């Protein structure tokens, strides 16, 4: 049940417990209670809106930054990750396997703002060994949604 509710909400967080109950053949009280529980357990962490900011006329830039760090005794990567994710301009921080350690997604108003952040805040952290910054030029698909696609029904309107 939980997985079905989450799958529906992940696609459309505006769906009400009433609507979900109809689709899953359940009662809206039950669904509402389950959602509340999942909010309390931090399984549901928030309700976002997926926006194509380019289309909204925003000039903000997004960068993916590969960060190599020295893990700290007893802390692993958690401490350094926290020092990075506390910056509000940081969108996401992932611990990654492979050639580098942390993947930081950063949003800034301009290229300059992003490079300022990297050179003055990120690189200067004690445990950071090196960074590599990649600017995102175009978003094709985000969170499972393809931005450009206009879905037109190509089927004939009546078929047997």
């Amino acid at each position, binding site marked *: 049940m939980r997985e079905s509710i989450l799958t529906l909400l992940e696609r459309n967080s505006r769906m009400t417990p009433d609507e979900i109950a109809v*689709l899953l053949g359940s009662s809206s009280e039950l669904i509402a209670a389950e959602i509340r529980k999942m909010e309390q357990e931090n399984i549901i962490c928030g309700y976002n809106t997926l926006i194509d900011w380019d289309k909204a006329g925003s000039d903000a830039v997004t960068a993916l930054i590969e960060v190599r760090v020295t893990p700290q005794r007893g802390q692993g990567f958690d401490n350094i990750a926290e020092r990075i994710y506390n910056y509000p301009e940081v969108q996401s921080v992932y611990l990654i396997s492979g050639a580098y350690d942390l993947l930081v997604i950063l949003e800034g108003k301009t290229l300059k703002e992003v490079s300022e952040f990297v050179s003055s805040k990120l690189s200067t952290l004690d445990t950071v060994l090196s960074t590599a910054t990649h600017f995102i030029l175009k978003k094709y698909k985000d969170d499972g949604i393809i931005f450009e696609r206009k879905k037109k029904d190509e089927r004939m309107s009546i078929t*047997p």
Partner: protein
Amino acid sequence: MKELSHSNLLSAKADSLKPSGIRKFFDIVAEMDDVVSLGVGEPDFDTPWAVRDEGIYTLERGKTFYTSNAGLMELRKEITRFLKKRLGVRYDPAGECLVTVGGSEAIDLAFRAMLNPGDEVLIPEPCYVSYVPCAVLADGVPVTIPLQDKNEFRLTAKELEDHITEKTKILVLPFPNNPTGAVMRREDLEAVARVCLEHDLYVVSDEIYSELTYTGEDHVSIVQIPGMQERTILINGFSKAFAMTGWRLGYCCGPEAILSVMTKIHQFAIMCAPTNSQYAATVALRDCYGEVEKMREAYNQRRRFLLHAFRKMGLPCFEPFGAFYVFPCIREFGMTSEEFATRLLEEQRVAVVPGDAFGRSGEGFIRISYAYSLDALKEAVGRLEKFVTKLRENS
């Protein structure tokens, strides 16, 4: 010079076939703007990307030649493996499996391979539109069995028995059913199987919607009932389960004696099913069943949504557990299905298919397809409710 005379020009048999009732409706809809259609008989999902990708890849590689008449061995192996897994029945890919141009071709082939002039074919109605004309073209005599709303449009042993004569040879089993969405449970099939065995009937089981059932249990096929596999042509395909209608690919499995004759006709009429589609379908069966499950869940949610909406509207509708159709009853409005559908289209711009397009016993019902997004369904249900409310106010 003699004038072309109509009677000389055409085969009387072919000329006598009634055009599909759906065609007329389609022409009206095509002229209108802002129509929300609930009239299609094909999935709204795209073919899974892995399947399309395989199609592209094999084109790039130039795999564009004929295949063997029966179809790629690789594909036939996947098909028989799939049937073994889903139904627990064994077919030999080398002699008991034929890849066809959609399930439709298999229906035509089965009749042409098995019917002699005058042989009767029992066809439960309402049903898909091609069984009757295909039986006629194969010199058979179609005998329809009107199914009942009160039985949730299942075929009962009694109904079957009542229509059997000395000439009866084939029973068509179109379940899960288009247009009603009805499914046959195991006990229903066992009862029907007993009658078939007693009267020595062959079965053409059109199971094209087998992967789209919502009972919570797997689809049950007549071939799973002891004694029936050897007298059944099992027809299925990729159109509905894998959203591959335009690829035109189906298949049939059955006793080698019948399959070899079907393959012979197929060889002369078609040669082989489209090569490109065959490669793509191999990937569909091998890698894409997870996508089928996702689509099934989406259909099930829409099905529940529609049934809930009809209950709220007070529109009587039995709960269908298969395909992607619901078949509500509109008798209370004192109109024929066609009048109802025409007025619904003209007044609210919603296209549905009148039930009688699928046989006389569909009169009094309309077929509503839920192969549409929830948003489209919401819009359509809103319009339908307005229409129904107005009709009730005026009566």
